[in-house]
C-alpha cells in the first residue's frame, strides 16, 4: 500500500510541474538576458529588471492597471448592487410580471454573446461611448448570472428576518443592504470574484470599443503589444508584459485561493 501511495504522490507532483513550471519559466525568462531565453531551462546566469523597464517605457502599463482596476471594480459594484436588488425583488417582492422577468433573465443566460457583439458595438458608436469608460462598464453592470445567484440565495433566507426588519420600520432598500447583505457574504463573494475576474480578463470587448491607449485595459494593451510591432521582437519584453498582467490576479489568488476555487466550482464558470 505504501508504494502505491508514493506512486500517487509522484503523479500528483508531476502534475504540479506541468501546471506551474511554465509560469516559473516565464518569470525567469522575463528576468533573463535576451540571448539566454532561447536556451533557458531553470535559472538565467544573471537576473535583471531590464525587460520590465522596457515595458514601462514602451506602454503605459500602470495606467492600464489603473483602468483595469477601475473598470473591474465599477462593474463588480454594479453587478452586486443591481444584481442583489433584482434578485431580492424576484424572490421577496410580489408584483405582476415577476415570473416573466425571471424567464427573460433565464433566457438571456442562454443567449450567446456572438449575436449581440456587432449591434452592441454600433450602439456604443451611436452613444458616442467609443473610447470612454462607459463602453467598458455600462453594458456589463448587470448580468443574469448575478441576479440568479442572488435570487437563489435570498430564497433561502428565513422570512422572519425580513418581517422583523419590516416591523422595525425598514424600507426594502434598508432590508436589502442592511439586513440581507451581511447575511449574504458567501453569495457576494462568489458573484464578486467571478464578475471581477471575468471583467479583468476580458479582451474582445475592449479591443472593439477602446482605441485610445490611455483607456486600454491591461489584457488589451498587452495583447496588442504581443501581436503588434512595439515589442521590437524582444522576447523578454513580451514575457515581462505577460508576467505583469498575471501578477495582480495571482497575488489575489494566493491570498484568497479557497474563495476563488469555491466560487468557480459552485458556479462552474470560468472566464
Amino acid at each position, binding site marked *: 500500500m505504501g508504494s502505491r501511495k508514493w506512486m500517487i504522490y509522484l503523479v500528483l507532483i508531476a502534475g504540479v510541474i506541468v501546471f506551474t513550471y511554465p509560469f516559473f519559466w516565464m518569470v525567469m525568462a522575463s528576468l533573463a538576458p*535576451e*540571448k539566454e*531565453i*532561447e536556451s533557458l531551462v531553470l535559472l538565467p546566469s544573471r537576473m535583471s529588471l531590464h525587460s520590465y523597464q522596457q515595458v514601462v517605457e514602451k506602454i503605459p502599463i500602470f495606467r492600464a492597471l489603473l483602468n483595469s482596476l477601475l473598470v473591474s471594480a465599477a462593474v463588480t459594484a454594479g453587478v452586486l448592487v443591481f444584481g442583489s436588488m433584482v434578485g431580492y425583488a424576484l424572490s421577496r417582492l410580489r408584483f405582476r410580471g415577476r415570473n416573466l422577468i425571471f424567464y427573460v433573465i433565464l433566457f438571456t443566460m442562454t443567449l450567446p454573446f456572438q449575436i449581440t457583439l456587432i449591434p452592441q458595438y454600433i450602439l456604443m*458608436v*451611436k*452613444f*458616442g*461611448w*467609443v*473610447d470612454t469608460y*462607459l463602453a467598458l462598464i*455600462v453594458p456589463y*453592470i448587470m448580468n443574469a448570472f448575478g441576479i440568479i445567484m442572488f435570487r437563489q440565495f435570498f430564497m433561502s433566507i428565513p422570512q422572519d428576518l425580513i418581517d422583523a426588519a419590516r*416591523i422595525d*420600520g425598514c*424600507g*426594502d*432598500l434598508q432590508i436589502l443592504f442592511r439586513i440581507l447583505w451581511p447575511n449574504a457574504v458567501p453569495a457576494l463573494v462568489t458573484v464578486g470574484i467571478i464578475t471581477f475576474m471575468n471583467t479583468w480578463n476580458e479582451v474582445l470587448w475592449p*479591443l472593439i470599443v*477602446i*482605441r*485610445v*491607449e*490611455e483607456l486600454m485595459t491591461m489584457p488589451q494593451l498587452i495583447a*496588442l503589444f504581443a*501581436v503588434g510591432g512595439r515589442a*521590437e*521582437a*524582444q*522576447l523578454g519584453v513580451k514575457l515581462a508584459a505577460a508576467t505583469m498582467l498575471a501578477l495582480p490576479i495571482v497575488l489575489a489568488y494566493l491570498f484568497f485561493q479557497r474563495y476563488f476555487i469555491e466560487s468557480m466550482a459552485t458556479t462552474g464558470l470560468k472566464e
Partner: protein
Amino acid sequence: MVMHFFDGRSVRRARMVWRCRQVVYLAVCSALILSGLACTSTRQRNPNEIIYWSSNNPYEIEFARLVVAEWNRRHPDTPVRYQPVPEGQSSEEVILAAVVGKTTPDVYSNMWQGDVEAFARAGVLVPLDTLPGFLEFLYQRCDSAVVREATSEDGHIYQVPWKINPIMMVYNVGLFRAIGLDRPPATYSEYLQAAEKMKADTDGDGYVDRWIGYLNVNVTWWKRLFDFYPLYLAASEGAPLVTGNRVVFNNRYAREVFQFLRRLYAGGHLPRDPMEGRQDPFIAGQVATQFTGPWVVRYLEKFKPEGFEYRFAPVPVPDDHQGPVYTYGDPKNIVIFGTSPNPRLAWKFVRFMISKENDRLFLETTDQLPRRRNLFQDPYFQAYFEKNPRMKPFARQAQYVRGTDVCPVLKEVFDAISQQFEASVIYGVVPVDKALEEAARRVRLML
C-alpha cells in the same frame, strides 16, 4: 399582531412616501446612468481654429509640434491645435469612430492611400481640387503619375500626397560574404542560387537555422503589402492590381512572383514558422535578407550586435527584367474632413505644412521621405543625405515607387490575394494558376 403606539395611518403614509421616493430615486438613477450619459456634449467650434491630427509616431509628433508652433507664430488669429491620433489597433479605426461621432479633425496627415477611396465614397472628405490653387500646387509638387494615383474614381482629388517609405531589401553583408558573394542577388535566379548556399545548419543539431529570408506568414491582408506587392510592382514596373472595376492582377507578373516564392518555400529556403515567438532572426544572423522600409534603420542601429553590417538593395526581379525596379512606397497622405468649418483655411495650413522648407524639416525630424519630385537631385535636400548616407538608397528608390490602386474594397483585394498566397506560396497546396484565378474570382464578386 403588532401593537402600534402611534397612529397607524400616518406611519403608513410616511412609509408610502418613502417608498414612492425610493422608486423615483431608482428611476432617476438608472435613467441617469443609462441614458443621461449617452448624450455627447456638442462642442462649439471656433471657425478660425484648425484642428490637426498627426500620427502618433514620436518623430512625427515632434515634427507636428515644430510646424504648428511656427504657424501659430505667423498666424496668431487662426491658430492650429494638434493632437496625435490615439494609438489603437490601426489609425483607420480611430478615424472611423471619429467619422461616426462627427468629431473628425480638420486636417489628418496619416491617411493610408488605400483607405482614401472608401472615405471619399462615404462623402466625408473635402474634394481638394475644388479649392483655389490646389491643382497648381499639386502639379508643381508631384509627377503626373502620382497625381493619377491620387485621383478618385469620380475624378476628384481627396488627398495630398505627403510621404513615402519605399520597401527595399535589407541584407546582412557578412552572411553573403560568408557564402562568397560580395553583392546581393538582384534577380530571381540569383536569389535562388544564394538561397541554396545560405541554407545551413550552423549548430549541427540536424535542423536548418540559417535561411535566405523570412516573410511574415500571417495571413492578415496588409502583410502582403510588404512581400507580394513590392515584388509584383517590381516585376511589372508598377502595374495596378485592379483598375476601375476590373481585376488585372491575374497576370504573368503575379504568377512569376508566386512561383518564385513558392519555389523558395518548397526548397525550405524560407521558414514557415511564425517567428514572432522568437528573437528577431535578421539580427540574430539567421536570416540574410528582409523586405522592409527605411524605419528599419533606426531599429537596427539600436539592436544590432557588434560588427553587424547591413545594406539595402532593390527587391529581386524576374531574370528577363529590364529597366528600373519599382517598389511599394507605403504612401501616407493628408486629407481635409468635410466637418471642417473652413476648408480653405485648413488647406492654407496644409500648404504651409508641406512647403519645401517644412518638407526638409520633416525629412530631418522623422527620416521619412516627402513625396515630391526630384527629392534626391534637389540640392536643397542634399545636405541631409550626405549626413544620413543610410537613407540614400531609399531616396534613389523614391523615383520608382507606386502607392495603391483606387479601389473602395482594396483591403478585400489584398485579403483575397493573401488567402491564396498562403495556400499556394507558403504551403504549396494550390497550384499558382488556380490560386490567382480563385483570388480574382473572389475580388470580382465584390467589385
